[in-house]
């Protein structure tokens, strides 16, 4: 009964949120920039066609770096805007729990990112036309990339609830995302390993996105990596909830 009610509420909120994406030109601009950046890195930097290998590592390789800037940009308005316009007060005084409101926003944005990812499919089609990539690995790469996008997004959603300024939300979110990326980035881990105890180095690098994305982009979907990305999302969205409960100021 309560679960039914709750899912109806989330669905209503999610529908409005998602429809909001496609009535604003910003969403289309976002999609175009996303596709152009991915395409630029894949074909111009990685030279996917010339590399002579028929897999998509040169394609997935760049996703964390493109996400680093684009997902905070997509997430920055989630709560900051509602806080600024006062609609947050409207929504949170409806019979809606904070968790429902957060999940609805998060899933709507995640679906939108999923659509962006799906639109890169022509790349995959080209490669499979030219070569014969392992389709299992490709699917795995997409699933991993989608999970990682969710983790980035949960960070952006959290920072967006901290402020009414989209710019501040964006910057905070990029900094935190950058930390998560660099934590597993080999040059950084090497630098740290010079002086830090090895357990700490191991811990930090396991905290990072890259080490978890590394096997995924090779086509290995490990349950531990999935659990990792889901935990990041759960943690960030819970923080998001705590922030909203405590900072409901107008």
């Amino acid at each position, binding site marked *: 009964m309560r679960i039914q*009610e709750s899912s*109806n*509420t989330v669905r*209503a*909120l999610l*529908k*409005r949120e998602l429809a*909001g994406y496609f*009535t*604003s030109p910003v969403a289309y601009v976002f999609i175009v920039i996303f596709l152009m950046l991915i395409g630029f890195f894949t074909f111009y930097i990685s030279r996917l066609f010339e590399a002579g290998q028929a897999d998509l590592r040169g394609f997935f390789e760049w996703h964390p770096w493109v996400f680093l800037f684009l997902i905070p940009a997509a997430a920055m308005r989630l709560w900051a805007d509602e806080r600024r*316009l*006062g*609609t947050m*007060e*409207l*929504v*949170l*005084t*409806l*019979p*809606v*729990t904070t968790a429902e409101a957060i999940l609805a926003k998060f899933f709507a944005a995640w679906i939108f990112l999923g659509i962006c990812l799906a639109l890169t499919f022509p790349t995959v089609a080209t490669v499979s036309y030219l070569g014969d990539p392992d389709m299992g690995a490709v699917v795995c790469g997409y699933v991993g990339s989608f999970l990682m996008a969710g983790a980035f997004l949960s960070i952006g959603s959290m920072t967006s609830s901290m402020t009414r300024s989209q710019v501040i939300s964006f910057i905070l979110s990029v900094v935190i995302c950058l930390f998560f990326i660099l934590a597993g980035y080999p040059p950084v881990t090497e630098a740290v390993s010079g002086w830090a105890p090895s357990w700490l180095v191991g811990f930090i690098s396991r905290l990072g996105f890259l080490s978890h994305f590394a096997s995924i982009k090779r086509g290995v979907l490990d349950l531990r990596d999935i659990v990792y990305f889901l935990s990041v999302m759960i943690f960030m969205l819970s923080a998001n909830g705590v922030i909203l*409960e405590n900072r*409901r*100021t*107008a």
Partner: protein
Amino acid sequence: MIQVSQLTKRFDIRTAVDNVSFAVEKGEILGFMGPNGAGKSTTMRMITGYLPPSSGTAVIGGRDIAQDGLSARKMIGYLPENAPVYREMTVQGFLGFIAEVRGFAGSRRRKAVSDAIEKCFLTEVGNQSIGTLSKGFKQRVCFAQCILHDPPYLILDEPTDGLDPNQKHEVRQMIRNMSAEKAVILSTHILDEVDAVCTRVIIIDDGKLVADDTPDGLRKRSKTHGAVSMLVSEALPEGLAEEIGRLADVSEYQVSDDPAGFRLRAFPRQPGLPIAPQILSLASNRGARIQSVFVEQGRLDEVFRAITTSDAGDSSTRSV
């Protein structure tokens, strides 16, 4: 019934709402008054569950907003300050969204939306996006949002703020039409509004409740309540004014020129003391040619000012 008990909200160091208690029954329209920054919006935000109180409780129809917020919020219609709306949505779309979140589906949902649109005179703009509407229409869209589920409790934060006189009149009309079987709290700093719609008034100043009365009851506290205003044509008989001023029940008097002669106003020593008979007999004994006499009812703005500026030093340092 809305039962507010010892509600308090502290922001860092300042106490925005300080130990406020009151109750509102069905059929009442409670005017919630106070100068800007007195704590009206903060109180309403706590009653609607948006802000957690520092201490105290608000119970709506038997449900505590802190313990059982979801059930309590189902019974409330809330119009936040400045009437926030999703500007990119159409009026229909927005109200449909609110209805859906409130659990309406299918034909019930369509009916709830069309009823609200009709009650708030929005038919002509139903398909327009809210961002393109004038302030008055936006306010009514947000108002439609709060009555859509026909809630027993309405909480309206400055529902007529920023509207022109005609729009104000319409919104007040809507509130009155709707209030018979509801308990309504509406905040305002417009005194006419209180007179026009409210059955009861509470005044808060600097977070504290300073009055809880009917509009008439409040007016009776005015120092001009029971004052006699008399228009005398031609000349005022010599010494009459002074003589009136010496009456035991009269505290002071004023004489002013008037196109038709002179106007004499006498104030009672205490609000409401019946001084008119003595003044009238005195004046007719002295042969004054009385054109008209009336007894003043007192003015809300005077009472309001007297109550809320008693600690003026405090309020000047208030703004944050």
